[in-house]
């Protein structure tokens, strides 16, 4: 027990940093995924074959292959492609952004940010495909007559999508979208294979440094508890939001 306590005290700052990193990845990848998902999901319902084909290709290939596989491809393959094609280096890119923001002293001295950069892109692109499916299903669940009615009232297609379909569809999408966000929190653990020191890798390095089962289980219990608190609070928020929407929808009738 003493050994466990000592390890936890020593590792406490790392664990806090890891948790913060996990939350940062969750927020950034979630925003990236939504930014990709909305055009991709609407694109699957487009009138134009080319747009439909591109978004279908994106969604089906991403959903058909494992996240781990994709992350390995992003970090190893794509990185080399963009370097040899455009001379693009993620480290230089981030440094440039920080310089433009007048804060390049934030740039870490001894680690490369490239795995974080490509890992976040991979995770965001992956979840973009899953969320695109949610958005497509939500839009499709809005009755077709509503589109026709809006069009016959003289609204343009873009206006119909924006004012008629999306507000209703969003309400239906909230529960599956939150489910996706919950799994996104869990899947930030995958970034450990790229050597990003988020929560699970912090714990894993500490675990591999000891041989005592008690210390190991204590560390894993801490990690699982932190993930559980984040994900379960998201689940509770989603349940409450869902109940509220059900009530307002029931009141509207």
């Amino acid at each position, binding site marked *: 027990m003493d050994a466990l306590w000592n390890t936890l005290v020593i590792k406490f700052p790392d664990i806090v940093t890891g948790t913060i990193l996990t939350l940062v990845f969750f927020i950034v990848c979630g925003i990236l995924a939504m930014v990709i998902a909305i055009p991709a999901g609407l694109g699957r319902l487009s009138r134009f074959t080319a747009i439909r084909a591109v978004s279908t290709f994106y969604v089906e290939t991403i959903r*058909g*292959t494992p996240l781990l*596989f994709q992350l390995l491809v992003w970090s*190893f393959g794509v990185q080399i492609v963009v370097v040899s094609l455009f001379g693009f280096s993620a480290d230089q890119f981030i440094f440039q952004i920080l310089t433009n923001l007048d804060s390049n002293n934030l740039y870490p001295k001894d680690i490369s940010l490239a795995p974080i950069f490509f890992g976040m892109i991979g995770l965001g692109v992956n979840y973009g495909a899953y969320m695109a499916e949610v958005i497509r299903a939500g839009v499709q669940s809005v009755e077709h007559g509503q589109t026709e009615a809006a069009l016959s009232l003289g609204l343009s297609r873009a206006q119909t999508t924006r004012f008629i379909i999306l507000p209703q569809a969003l309400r239906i999408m909230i529960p599956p979208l939150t489910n996706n966000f919950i799994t996104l929190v869990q899947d930030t653990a995958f970034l450990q294979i790229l050597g990003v020191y988020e929560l699970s890798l912090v714990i894993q390095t500490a675990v*591999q440094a000891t041989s005592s089962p008690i210390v190991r289980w204590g560390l894993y219990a801490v990690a699982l508890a932190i993930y559980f608190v984040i994900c379960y609070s998201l689940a509770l928020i989603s349940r409450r939001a869902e109940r509220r929407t059900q009530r307002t929808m029931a009141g509207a009738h």
Partner: protein
Amino acid sequence: MQKIPAPVRFLAIVAVLVIVFGACGSLTLGAFDKVQTHSPGSLLDPSALVGNVWHFLQETLRVVTTATDRNGVPLRNYFLSGLALTIEFCAISMPLAIVLGLALALMSRARNRWLRVPARAYVEFFRNTPLLVQMLAIYWGLLFLPPWLLNPGTAGVATLVLNYAAYECENLRAGLAAVDRGQGEAAESLGMGFFQSLRHVVLPQIISVVLPPILNDLIYMFKDSSILSLIAISELTKQSTGLGRQFPDHYWNFIAIGAIIYLLLSLPLARVARSVEERLRSVSYVPRMDPMVATVWVLAISTLIGVVAGALADTYSQKFGAITQWIFGVGLTLLLMLIVLVVLGGIVSLPGGLLGLFKRPNQPDQPDKPDSAPVAVAAQ
């Protein structure tokens, strides 16, 4: 919007993948070439790009058919053994996850709180923590066990089953909630026992509700089994990316083959799931086969697939596929499940029991229908 036939769509996807990956591969050719016989191509030169993609296609075919590694082992064996292992893990884990998920679903519908609370705690715990950390905890945390009980194979089976049992429990619970509780009671009043009424009255009705999400979960498991590469199981992801590390010149060829194998299995499965869902929605479907018999069939067939795939993997990699390993994996899973249920149930019921002391006495201790609110949420 006219429908494009599925095989055509699949072939189109594969063709685009090959072109994109071929372009990537040809553009990075020079990057690893020490003698610089190839120079990196340019996106702006279409004729060179076409030639490069054609070359890429030929190289990919060569990898699939004749190419060997430094020891003379055909490269296709890497992919075959990886694929076999992936299928094997899914075929062993999914039926077991469904059976344990059914047990959990029945437990979480029970009126006895000593059954209900641990089952709910189990499900919430496994659904709200990362599969990756669960796997690492099972493998690294239990390394003190003897190696015949804990090795990558048994730990992998245990992880997949324990995690997916929680998801299957939610699916089955939604299905059970769709059947009126009165039916089970009516069956019991006709003299059927609990398991008889479950088998003859309740389960046949829920199959149409639970089959589509279970098939979807099978696809998810198929993809999630890629994390087993982190505990040194050389399944498909590990094999294709590992080959890419060994022969960086052909990185994109291996990646393309791996991606196409994954798509070849998951896209048709998704298609089957969708068509099953549509067919079941259109008619009120009651299966003619006794669900018990059906379950036994599914178990038998998937075990057969697992054993055959295991034997294949065994010939290729000489490491995995021992049947005893799967038996010990199942044993380890059941043991862990029992421990987790007891521990989590204890953790959850202790504060609950303490809080119960402060409750006002005129309120019922527990709601009579445990499945009223949460099930309505899950059923959507």
